[in-house]
């Protein structure tokens, strides 16, 4: 058996995206299913057409199932319909607005709640916390809602509106995080804690805190569990990063494929959650295993030209 995985970014562009692909491939390989990959990079001008083309090419090449990482909830609707019309099951990462056989969704809201709960263990009751939001991406919006709800639930004081552009790292790179963290520190000099929404933003916040002389004084948590963030936790500079278990997300998708192809199960629009992950604080950081060491990083085989008659 063979499946097509339509990846949203070229290999090597993003460690997390690569790790997810390897989690998917290795779990399928354990079950005797071969993975072929087409990279339909969402940053390219021909996207999302390229993702529709990829799915159709895979179906024409005779794959047994298609896995798609959905970036825009309306795409690739035509490709998915083509696959299902040809009896090829479609399983997605994220829940799209078109019909698929099953999907994996992210518990972003829960992540936000648990990050707030963890921060509360480091701070005094009602301590002042600033939150740096991210771009208008669904995952990040849901994370923000969880953070806001979580901070309220644990009795911490949110000082800013994370949706205010002054505190949103819409550029999603470290430099933007530095600028927004500096804004927070300037506007709220008594800040006790800070939540940069992801690790890249946190790297910028560390620079801002260092410049303001408050590094280590303001407690921080962020999300992703990247190696750089874990290293800063080990060094005592950062206080916690939520490890998303990205290889585990790929494995969760693979398990649905196995249920469908090996188990013969009609998944019937089943929706399952990806792993919740865990907080990597100082204690966990010492035994933290990088994504690459958790699963086999087999070669991801691109395309299937030799399969097409």
């Amino acid at each position, binding site marked *: 058996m063979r499946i097509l995985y339509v990846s949203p970014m070229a290999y090597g562009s993003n460690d997390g995206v690569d790790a997810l692909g390897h989690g998917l491939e290795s779990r399928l390989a354990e079950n005797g299913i071969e993975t072929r990959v087409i990279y339909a990079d969402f940053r390219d001008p021909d996207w999302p057409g390229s993702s529709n083309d990829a799915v159709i090419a895979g179906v024409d090449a005779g794959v047994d199932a298609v896995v798609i990482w959905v970036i825009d909830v309306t795409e690739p609707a035509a490709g998915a319909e083509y696959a299902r019309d040809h009896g090829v099951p479609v399983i997605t990462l994220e829940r799209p607005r078109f019909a698929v056989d099953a999907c994996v*969704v992210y*518990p*972003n*809201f829960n992540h936000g709640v648990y990050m707030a709960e963890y921060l509360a263990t480091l701070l005094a009751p009602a301590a002042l916390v600033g939150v740096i939001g991210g771009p208008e991406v669904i995952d990040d919006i*849901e994370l923000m809602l969880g953070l806001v*709800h979580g901070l309220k639930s644990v009795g911490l004081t949110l000082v800013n509106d994370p949706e205010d552009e002054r505190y949103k790292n819409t550029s999603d790179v470290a430099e933007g995080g530095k600028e927004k963290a500096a804004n927070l520190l300037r506007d709220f000099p008594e800040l006790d804690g800070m939540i940069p929404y992801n690790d890249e933003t946190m790297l910028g916040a560390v620079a801002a805190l260092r410049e303001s002389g408050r590094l280590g004084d303001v407690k921080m948590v962020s999300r992703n569990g990247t190696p750089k963030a874990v290293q800063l936790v080990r060094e005592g500079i950062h206080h916690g990063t939520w490890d998303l278990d990205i290889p585990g997300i790929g494995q969760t998708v693979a398990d649905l494929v196995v249920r469908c192809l090996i188990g013969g199960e009609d998944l019937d629009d089943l929706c*399952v959650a990806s792993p919740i992950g865990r907080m990597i604080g100082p204690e966990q950081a010492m035994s933290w295993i990088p994504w690459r060491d958790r699963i086999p990083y087999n070669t991801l085989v691109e395309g299937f030209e030799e399969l097409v008659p």
Partner: protein
Amino acid sequence: MRILYVNPLPEGGNPAIDAIGHGVEAAVRSGGGELRCLVTDFREPGLGEDTAAAFDAGIEAGVDAIIMYALDPAEPAAAAQRARSAGVRVFSLVPPDFPVDGAVVYPNFNQGLFMAQWLAGRLQPADRVGIIGGPDTPDDAEEVIGLIYGFSRAGITVVNDATLPQWCNLIDVAAGGEEVGRRLLAEHPEITALAPYNDETMLGTLRVLEETGRTGTLPIISRNGSPAAVEQVRAGACTATWDLDATGIGWAAGSLAVRNLAGHAAEGERVMSPVGRLISRDNIDTWRPWEDRIDWQPLIVGLG
């Protein structure tokens, strides 16, 4: 391997809670263990003390693990500490505020969001939605936030603030849904769709609609996928119910405990429960009763 499950409601009180218990039992049995139950009742005062007493009985009986349902996330902290100090592992449906050996997390927000998205896809911008919240447990609060966000994202107006107690079914039975539903429809006659947070609440609102001759005229969505709600979907009185796969939730808790006792789970591991799926008239023929999804055996109450 003997595991105690502290059931938060006597059997027959709520079909979803019953199904969770049977899911726990099936998973423990599948892992080679034996499940015993002690029963509390979250509707009665003193839930924390009753749960603590069940924990102490489990410790006394020498069980290997205790599985609880953290309806009150603060309780029973001291009893859980006593259990863990005595070498009894503690697991929880919903992470509590105190340390445990593992917990099952519900994607409540996602479920609320998907329910709202689905219903919004069948509404017009001029429609007005009323939401009835629950008794302010973490589960219900998160689902309601997902509902509110989902309707907002879809551009559908919600007429009431379902985070306020006056719009919540605080007693969590159909009568409570009926009372809040009656008040909501009276104060907001512009409502054209309803989202009661769970099936029991929805069943209460249906009584109000029936009284006023409006059965089947308002799109309604609720959560749980209970047999009674599925029947109302089949009858056309309710538009859809989110089947949260109650036996799957129980299975997740039971199998986590089994894995932990076998040394195959991380310390304090949290696992996600199933997200489930929506049941409407489009797919109702594929719905299977919870009893048919697992090897459903009687729950043995008592530790003797």
